[in-house]
């Protein structure tokens, strides 16, 4: 399992370097998604399949979609349309595709060997144990996370609300 882990780690580090050196935000997001997928593969190797799935679903799914929404909101107009046209024909996705293909081959090798359970020293922690720990000794943490998410929701709604300019202008 060691080469699989190291290849995933190298992919993660390379894609993270690409993230912080890109000039275009969308290109950086593509490489960031690859980095998160590589970290998810590392979680699989480490025997944490539940967290690996959550990494893909929540990080690479929900949070990245938020970033894409905001970036798309920020460059509207004809310049944005021209940029879209350039993205469609350019080979921007070449690097992320190569890195993701490496990860795909890794997952295929792991699944074909049924490697997670066969690994001698790694003891996988199944989702059941995580759930038991989450709702047993860490129950107060779950409630605090719920309160934090509610606070984040209220704050994001309050900050992102359009400013009531119309009430100020007549006065």
């Amino acid at each position: 399992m060691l080469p699989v882990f190291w290849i995933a780690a190298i992919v993660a580090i390379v894609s993270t370097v690409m993230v912080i050196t890109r000039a275009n935000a969308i290109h950086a997001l593509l490489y960031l998604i690859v980095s998160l997928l590589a970290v998810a593969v590392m979680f699989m190797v480490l025997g944490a399949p539940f967290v690996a799935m959550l990494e893909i679903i929540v990080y690479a799914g929900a949070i990245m979609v938020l970033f894409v929404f905001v970036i798309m909101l920020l460059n509207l107009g004809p310049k944005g349309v021209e940029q879209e046209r350039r993205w469609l024909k350019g080979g921007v996705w070449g690097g992320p595709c190569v890195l993701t293909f490496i990860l795909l081959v890794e997952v295929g090798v792991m699944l074909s060997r049924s490697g997670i359970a066969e690994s001698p020293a790694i003891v996988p922690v199944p989702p059941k144990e995580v759930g038991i720990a989450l709702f047993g000794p860490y129950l107060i943490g779950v409630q605090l996370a719920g309160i934090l998410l509610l606070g984040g929701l209220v704050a994001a709604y309050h900050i992102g609300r359009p400013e009531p300019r119309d009430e100020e202008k007549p006065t």
Partner: protein
Amino acid sequence: MTIPMEQGLMIAGVLFILGLVGLMVRRNVVFMLISVEIMLNAAGLAFVVAGARWGAADGQVMFLFILAMAAAEVAVGLALVLRIFGQNKTLDIDAANALASSVSVGFQEPAIAQAGEPIVAPTDAQTKSPDESATRGETDPC
């Protein structure tokens, strides 16, 4: 152990430092948020590596908490990004210095060290800051 804990923690440290470098180098607010996400992800990786070392579920539980915190943080942060862009028409974090009234006046040192009138200088700065905010509000088209 086929994967020693030191190597996993080293990778987590490398990812965290990359995120920190990105946070310090970039001046774009969106890139700074992305760098913060990288750092949070590296911290979660360290937790999962340590949890896998002992075969315990606690590391994964901590990663779930980090995940929830990152989701809340990115929601608030992106709302702030939208608000900063609406106010300044740029994503440059250096443009969001409305709280530093002495900076936009011209980076004068606070006139406390001046031997003359130490009380007049702060009131001068106070009288200037409402004008600035008024002009900023006028130039804001939305």
